């Protein structure tokens, strides 16, 4: 048997952490990982954040991001242990034998330079190709990756192309020097679902066409199932399970893998609408001051008491603007909002305090939504004082009740946000919203920044609280799986308009309008071959038209 392209043995990676107010401590990120990757194959690395996926991926280039340091083990690339090499020879490996595609192409391209110069830079600098050869090759790659106008797109600057296009340019950048191995680090995570499917197909075709090997890092098992030959499941820096894609998806052995495969198994029966909605949005049209473009165009939706309306759409579709209008942060230019039977003042400043209390918000970034210098008790206690004038023992009792409701036990009162995990922080934000005893909570992408299993826990909690408190949710998300899990009714938004609206079962059953069809069929399924089927299906449809 020939030597594999990449051989990792006993890889240990550590970093120095700086906990607030304490002495720096050495922490271990990866505790001894072994794997092989044959030339021309694709290995998927999957796990939640903190599992060490990216760190392992970058170790194939002997690179530690920030204060991360490889502390032990061996990484063999093309028969050499690269951890024993000095910086000079590592620089001949990076960008020549092994290249990297990052999550955010928008941040990873230099804004001041043309795309072509950046795509060909490594190939020319590493003496792989002359300038004209490299440019020819880049154009060829642009064509393979399905970029529009491949001859000239290289003359543009990064801000002049879309996010999905730039992510393909980043793939071209990685493939241009003819590497043996490409590390793809969550290359489609930052993209909208309808863009993701095209980029994913382009990457897969480019890998097949060039015969390059790849490490494909992602937290989305459904995505990795489409592109990889083998999958390694990681948890907290340790390997949990390794196998062929077929085995991991269809016959997972370990409990953790089973949980990942069956994530989003929440079943939620939709409730029937009541006679009087708690919130009625009528003919809302809005624009930002100083612009002439309507971000929202004649929006009409209802939310019923104790039920969930999911507003779904891509970035830029106007979902969050709708939330801003409802809360009064952005007074609409036309239309009106009725809340609990009374008409709401357009602007936040002119609403009475009870209107403010009965409508609360939870945000995507729990981190930035809390004062880092206040304890959890102070954060939850604030609305109790402000709206209900609770003090002393009564306040303490209520805080404890709320903490019980969000399933955080004793001792959390005195902790600071920095001492909580991402899921715990979001739970505290939920408790703060509940403390006001609202009739409606607006949830703006509240699970988007969380790992799938943690997000699942938050969704279950929200559904449970809805039963107990009879609170309505306006749930803004771009993730259709979340919508299916919790919604009673759904509004699909596209370019500032509601293109489809109704109960969950109505919206999610055919016949579909074109946009909803595109949106629904773009969500990756946990099924090998889904990508090809969907792309093929679309080709046949467009050929039929």
């Amino acid at each position: 048997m020939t030597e594999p392209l990449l051989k990792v043995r006993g890889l240990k990676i550590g970093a120095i952490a700086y906990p607030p107010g304490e002495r720096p401590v050495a922490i271990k990120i990866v505790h001894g990982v072994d794997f092989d990757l044959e030339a021309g194959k694709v290995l998927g690395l999957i796990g939640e954040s903190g599992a060490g996926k990216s760190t392992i991926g970058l170790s194939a280039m002997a690179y530690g991001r920030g204060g991360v340091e490889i502390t032990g083990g061996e990484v063999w690339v093309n028969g050499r242990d690269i951890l024993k090499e000095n910086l000079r020879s590592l620089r001949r490996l990076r960008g020549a034998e092994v290249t990297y595609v990052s999550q955010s192409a928008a941040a990873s391209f230099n804004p001041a330079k043309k795309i072509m110069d950046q795509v060909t830079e490594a190939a020319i600098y590493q003496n792989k190709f002359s300038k004209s050869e490299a440019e020819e090759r880049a154009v060829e790659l642009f064509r393979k990756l399905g970029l529009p106008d491949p001859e000239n797109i290289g003359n543009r600057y990064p801000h002049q192309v879309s996010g999905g296009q730039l992510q393909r340019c980043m793939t071209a950048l990685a493939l241009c020097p003819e590497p043996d191995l490409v590390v793809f680090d969550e290359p489609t995570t930052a993209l909208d679902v309808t863009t993701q499917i095209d980029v994913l197909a382009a990457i897969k075709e480019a890998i097949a066409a060039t015969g390059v090997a790849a490490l494909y890092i992602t937290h989305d098992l459904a995505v990795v199932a489409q592109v990889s030959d083998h999958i390694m499941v990681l948890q907290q820096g340790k390997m949990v399970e390794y196998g062929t894609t077929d085995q991991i998806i269809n016959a997972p052995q370990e409990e953790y893998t089973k949980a990942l495969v069956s994530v989003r198994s929440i079943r939620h029966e939709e409730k029937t609408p009541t006679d009087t909605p708690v919130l009625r949005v009528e003919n809302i049209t809005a624009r930002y001051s100083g612009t002439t473009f309507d971000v929202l165009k004649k929006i009409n939706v209802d939310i019923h008491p104790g039920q969930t309306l999911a507003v779904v759409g891509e970035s830029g579709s106007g979902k969050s603007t709708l939330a801003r209008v409802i809360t009064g942060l952005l007074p609409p230019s036309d239309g009106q909002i009725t809340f609990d039977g009374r008409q709401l003042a357009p602007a936040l400043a002119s609403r009475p305090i009870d209107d403010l209390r009965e409508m609360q918000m939870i945000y995507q970034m729990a981190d930035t939504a809390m004062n880092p210098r206040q304890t959890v008790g102070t954060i939850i206690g604030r609305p109790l004082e402000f709206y209900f004038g609770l003090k002393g023992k009564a306040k303490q009792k209520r805080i404890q009740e709320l903490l019980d409701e969000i399933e955080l036990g004793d001792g959390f009162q005195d902790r600071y946000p920095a001492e909580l995990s991402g899921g715990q922080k979001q739970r505290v934000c939920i408790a703060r919203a509940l403390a006001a005893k609202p009739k409606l909570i607006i949830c703006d992408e509240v699970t988007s920044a969380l790992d799938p299993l943690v997000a699942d826990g938050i969704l279950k909690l929200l559904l449970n609280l809805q039963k107990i408190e009879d609170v309505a949710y306006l749930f803004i998300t771009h993730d259709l799986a979340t919508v299916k899990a919790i919604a009673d009714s759904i509004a699909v938004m596209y370019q500032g308009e509601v293109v489809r609206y109704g109960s969950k079962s109505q919206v999610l059953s055919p016949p579909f309008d074109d946009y909803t069809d595109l949106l629904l069929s773009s969500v990756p399924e946990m099924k090998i071959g889904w990508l090809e089927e969907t792309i093929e299906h679309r080709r046949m449809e467009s050929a039929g038209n």
Partner: protein
Amino acid sequence: MLMHPVLKLIAQRLALGLLLLFAASVLIFAGTSILPGDVAQSILGQSATPEALANMRRELGLNDPALTRYFAWLGGVLQGDLGTALTNGRDIAESLGGRLKNTLFLAFWAAAISVPLAIFLGLLAVRYKDRWPDKLISAVTLTTISIPEFMIGYVLIYWIAIKWRLFPSVAIINDSMSLGEKLNAIAIPVMVLTLVVLAHMMRMTRAAILNVMQSAYIETAELKGLGMLKIIRKHAFPNAIAPIVNVVMLNLAYLVVGVVVVEVVFAYPGMGQYLVDHVSKRDVPVVQASGLIFAAVYIGLNLVADIVSILANPRLRHPK
């Protein structure tokens, strides 16, 4: 007609600059008008008769309303006539022109040395961040900016001019000197000014580039296998130009309008000394003219910094 957005932005800045200059002229005129003291009195002395004073005032136009005097002055300035000095009756534009030329000459050479040196030291400090070259550069430049400039001036005169006899201690130049002779004469003041402005520009360069070095695209460059100096030069510097140009222009402005102390120490015939002389003599037209020129230099250089910042932004230069 559709204008390129960059041209529109630059046109806006230029218009704003002119407006600012106009406002500065109002402030300068108002400021000098409310100064205590009487020009006629200070020209004629304490023993002047009331009739002589009244005659003098009429002659100087001091009895006209302020608004009339302001527009008369502004109209003259726009035609290149800065008026005549009260103290010696000479044309201000003429005597100021020579002084301004000298000031710009000194500022030019100080800038020609300090700007490239500051940027080079800033790049070097980034390359060796937190190692001894970085710390040495920071320590030395911080020391020189902390010592008052006249002190540096005297120290340099003591060593370079008196002990080692390399350059003269007095920087008097005139039109009959050759360029070499002039440069020889201003060598020490140029050194002093360089030491004074170096630290500010160098530290800003360092900070601006270090800020850019945190970006993801720098990691991309590292993962292409590029060397550190190439990364700084090709990927970091082009994105750090705007803040660097801003601090460079501030320091250039200082080199033109703020060098009074150095000019006095070296008896250099520049604008600063000229201004100080005439302030003490209450020669209002000269003070107004000098103030206006300083304001124009200051606004002009900052305008250049703004325009360079606009041009350095690829999003504005190449709109979608």
